[in-house]
């Protein structure tokens, strides 16, 4: 289960991402080994989402490299990375509101050609989220926020990714839904999918992860075993709302 640090699936080396003249990510190093669940936590505006955008080519990288399976993929467009087994659940879920739930899931499998496998995987997603099955022919815009998050995760799984990037999956959800979403993340991880989880909810994220990175003002300030970070007094004070 633990990561194989020798051949990380994803590795960021001195990654820098800038918006105009403002450096949002200032040369961070980060790796995710095969099979690992790694979280990147930090306050609002720390540069977590920008890091993801740099990885997936949504925001131009101004310095450093992104390696996926050992290969330099810096600046490669997102659609090419998806074809190589990387899937992302974007911030705010990004479901296609005008498409039906089935069509959303079919979009997740856009890069695949095996019709039977796709059908089977749609049923697997429905088994995981029965609520989606009830509404399979409804447009995704009619779903609640939590249901949309389920759909977004299910959709990302449809590409049978080797690496799943999750951007703030708990954002804007009711506590019960957050619980359900994290159970799902653990289940997905249990199937052997490597996950990089971006979260503001540091406690939950560290509880489910193997390792964690803490980001502040565009830099990684702390990294290590998730359980250790969970008990780190600085983390407890800054992110977990517990006095040191």
């Amino acid at each position: 289960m633990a990561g194989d640090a020798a051949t990380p699936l994803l590795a960021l080396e001195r990654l820098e991402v800038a918006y105009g003249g403002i450096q949002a990510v200032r040369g961070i190093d980060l790796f995710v080994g095969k099979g690992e669940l790694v979280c990147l936590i930090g306050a609002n505006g720390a540069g977590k989402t920008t890091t993801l955008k740099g990885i997936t080519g949504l925001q131009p990288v101004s310095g450093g490299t992104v390696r996926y399976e050992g290969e330099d993929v810096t600046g490669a467009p997102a659609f090419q990375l998806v074809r190589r087994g990387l899937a992302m659940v974007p911030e705010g879920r990004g479901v296609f509101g005008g498409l039906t739930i089935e069509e959303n899931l079919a979009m997740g499998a856009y890069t695949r050609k095996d019709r039977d496998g796709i059908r089977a995987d749609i049923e697997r997603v429905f088994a995981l989220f029965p609520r989606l099955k009830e509404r399979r022919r409804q447009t995704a815009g009619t779903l609640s926020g939590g249901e949309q998050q389920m759909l977004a995760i299910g959709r990302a799984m449809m590409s049978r990714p080797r690496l799943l990037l999750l951007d703030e999956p708990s954002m804007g959800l009711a506590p019960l839904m957050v619980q359900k979403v994290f159970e799902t993340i653990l289940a997905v991880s249990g199937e052997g999918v490597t996950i990089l989880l971006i979260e503001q909810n540091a406690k939950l994220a560290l509880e489910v992860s193997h390792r964690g990175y803490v980001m502040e003002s565009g830099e990684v300030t702390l990294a290590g075993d998730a359980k250790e970070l969970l008990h780190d007094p600085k983390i407890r004070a800054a992110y977990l709302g517990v006095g040191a």
Partner: protein
Amino acid sequence: MASEGRPPGLRSPPFRGGRSRNPPRPRTNAAATHRGPRLPPTDPSRPLDIFLQQLVNGLTLGSVYAVVALGYTMVYGIIQLINFAHGEVVMIGALTAYSVIVALTGAQVPLPALAIVLVGAMVAIPVCMAVGYTLERTAYRPLRKAPRLAPLITAIGLSIILQNLAMIIWSRNPLSYPQIIQTVPYHLTGNPNGATITNVQIAILVTSVAMMGGLLALVYRTKLGIAMRATSQNPVVAGLMGVDINRVISLTFVIGAALGAVAGVMVGSYYGIAHYQMGFLLGLKAFSAAVLGGIGNLAGAMLGGLLLGVIEALGAGYVGDLTNLCQLSGWFDALAQRCASDPNVTLFGSNYQDVFAFLVLILVLVFRPSGLLGERVSDRA
């Protein structure tokens, strides 16, 4: 250029450029003279025939509008751009097919007339697809992230460039399609002088409906179609699903251009004429049709096109009767004397045909900016 057995539009092609090069038609009873040599000049005993004839003509014209409107609405749907050069793509389709048909008939190729027109279309379609692709690739794509006014003005510029290129290639003159297809009228009523539908009109209606059905199947049943709809809703996330957005957008332009090519060939064959400025008015009307139906909405473009064609035909057909001042001759002695010699003193004749499309556009923009089937009111550039 007018001849018997041709659709009446030949006398005065409704798709002319900004300037009218046609002498104003005499203001006579518009309903009787507007359409069809087969329509009796005056047969007031059969108003139904007149109405049916206008309806057939309107539906034919409207189905062409609908096919062109689909090109506008598809592109708008996917990148929120009004591709004002789309009318010119239709024009290039008509003129390309014209050249092919002239070449084939001139060389006395032993092919049936229908086959010659089909070959013309088969050449026009790839030519227009290439034009559509080039427009997107070279002009619109670099402006994808620019403020919306920039691509809009670019579209108008491209439209002018394409018109002038066509003028250089095909000359300034209206070009008559060789009359190779025998127009065969079929009577719709028992009246031997009554309303008819011609084989050309049937062919246009069938072709248009088939293309619309094909497009709906493509958009709602295929993987590419789902990708197109997904891209139109959220291009960034579509990219995260593995969709090559640039390819999907290019394909949207290319498909729209192919539809436009067929529309151009249909218009050319129907009116028997093609001209480098014919795309201007046709494009504006088809755009009006797309707005009427709700721009971005495929079914809306189809409905809007058909409605606009029918409104235009009925409007042009009846505006003369409705504005005939002789209805008021009981009120004014001078008018009565005038009407005694000529029973038709009309304010507006069927040459006001073009007014109706834009009247509809204005009314839609004022009272229902989202169009008949449009759901959301989006800000338009």
